[in-house]
């Protein structure tokens, strides 16, 4: 898993809990890296799960909730670092539609060996879209956070219904997004 995710997770934790708490948590976890992460490195996904779990126990927030918050955080980071992706999309639905064929293409240019989740989209109405997330990693909640943050970013009220279709070692989440109330 790309180091950027780890770096961002620790950043968020530091903001919420302070450096000392983060250092403590890192010291207590059993990590192959000893908790040293940089944005361009690659680290086992299990360590991310370990960290999320550790922070969750520390603050008493359930893991799914934490993942979701992390999704919001990560989205803000994307907007800041890659504003170009957002400026030419009129709304959140077109942003979702562009992930697979535009955003991921750019990511692969930077990290040819990256393992990315898949985002399938299907317009079910003019203002409604079905987004299916598939990944070998159990990060459906993180994805949920990203979806919500993106809708917030465009400032359009929307309804999001989520269905879990995971199975066979794959996390699958189907989001049905309807714009307008």
């Amino acid at each position, binding site marked *: 898993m790309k180091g950027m995710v780890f770096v961002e997770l620790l950043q968020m934790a530091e903001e919420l809990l302070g*450096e000392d708490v983060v250092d403590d948590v890192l010291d207590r976890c059993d990590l192959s890296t*000893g908790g040293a992460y940089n944005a361009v490195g690659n680290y086992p996904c299990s360590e991310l799960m370990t960290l999320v779990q550790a922070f969750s126990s520390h603050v008493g927030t359930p893991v799914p909730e934490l993942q979701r918050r992390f999704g919001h955080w990560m989205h803000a980071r994307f907007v800041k670092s890659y504003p170009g992706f957002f400026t030419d999309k009129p709304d959140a639905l077109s942003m979702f539609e562009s992930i697979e064929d535009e955003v991921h293409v750019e990511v692969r240019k930077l990290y040819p060996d990256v393992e990315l989740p898949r985002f399938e989209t299907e317009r079910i109405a003019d203002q409604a879209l079905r987004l299916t997330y598939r990944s070998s990693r159990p990060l459906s909640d993180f994805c949920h956070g990203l979806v919500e943050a993106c809708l917030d970013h465009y400032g359009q009220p929307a309804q999001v219904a989520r269905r879990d279709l995971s199975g066979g070692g794959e996390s699958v989440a189907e989001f049905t997004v309807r714009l307008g109330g």
Partner: protein
Amino acid sequence: MTDPAPPRPDPAPTVSRARYDRERRARQEAESLLEAKSRELYVVNQRLMRQAEALEQAVRDRTADLEAARAQAEAASAAKSVFLASMSHEIRTPLNGVLGMAAALGDTPLSVAQRDMLAVIIDSGDMLLSVLNDILDLSKIEAGRFELEDVPFDLAEAVRSVERMHALKAEEKGLDFGVQVRGAGWVRGDPNRLRQVLGNLVSNAIKFTERGLVRVLADLSPPDAAGGVLLRLVVADTGQGIGDDRMAQLFTPYAQGGPAVARQYGGTGLGLSIARQFCRMMGGDLTAESRPGFGSTFTATVRLAVAEAPPLAQPGAVERDFAERLRRQPLSILAAEDNGTNQLVLKGLLRRFDLRVDIVPNGRVAVEAWHRDRPDLILMDVQMPLMNGIEATQAIRRAEAEARRPRTPIIALSANAMRHQIEEYLAVGMDGNVTKPIRRAELIEAIVAVLPRPAPAARACDRPDAVCTPRAG
């Protein structure tokens, strides 16, 4: 001197040892990743550079290959032209034999049936000769070695001779064939090439027209200040016409209107391409217009110059005068010719005249015979074994100068000679040239032209196109 102490920064916020170590490890790891990436980039870059170099080399190789292929194709094309020229030449020599002997046969008593057969032999031979000449012309044009003549001739007569040649064929097909000549007179130019151009247009018009008209207009412009004239030859027919798709190929060598044309009408598809090139060499052009199903109109233009009309000469007069002269003054001719058939042709052509002809097979024997027999005139083939005609002529001219002997006229018998070659013959001491296939009238004209003028009549050298070298004795 000491400055006042700078303001102290705030005491640095402390960072735990563990945090510091983590940050450092993370940085070191990022650095080694960066190094690995740099190395990778370098390797990939090298590979790209090698690939670009290889591509450039491939392009260079390919270009060189193409260049070589082009040079090869050009060499092959030049070789083809040379081959065609020499092959046509090789065929012409025996054909000359056939035609010469056929002409000689015409001078012997023959039955009517034999005369008819002879006419077919001569017709077919003439046709074969004209195809051969076409191929030869084209290869000379393609090799850039074609030389035009520049002699005075009667334009109207040239046009009429083409008319005469085709009138019978037009009549056989029931065509209304008319020729109109406007503003013609004597001009300077290449009459044979002009006849060839017009002849092909007229023969095409008759060939490709089943009913209706074939009209020829020869229109000569008034002379400009420099005496230049523009001749326009228009040949119009009411034949099958030429489709747009064929128009583009019309002047391409060997291109006929499809293979069916050769089957039905014969021909080689060289006529128009040669005609156009001749027109262009003569400062004009050849163009075509056609409405398929209604007919075609070909317009040829050439630049000529006005010329003075020479005093009238009667047809057949040269030969008659020659025979007359022989009665008063005997003539002995030495002919050097290695080819047995050509020897027979020469004898056949001269048989009707009362003169002596000795034939020898090469230049060396010719020089000996000249020493011994003192002939009045020598006919000298150019290419012969042991000693060729040029060497023999030079030897004779040297011997004459040393012994102060009078000069013996020498006429070259050349196959397929070009103007610069004829000039070379004259330069080494020959006095005239007759081109094979030898026609009796031309041979006699050339002989008369180089012989010393007989006392009473002086006709031959009035002809402007005869080669006359003034000499003593």
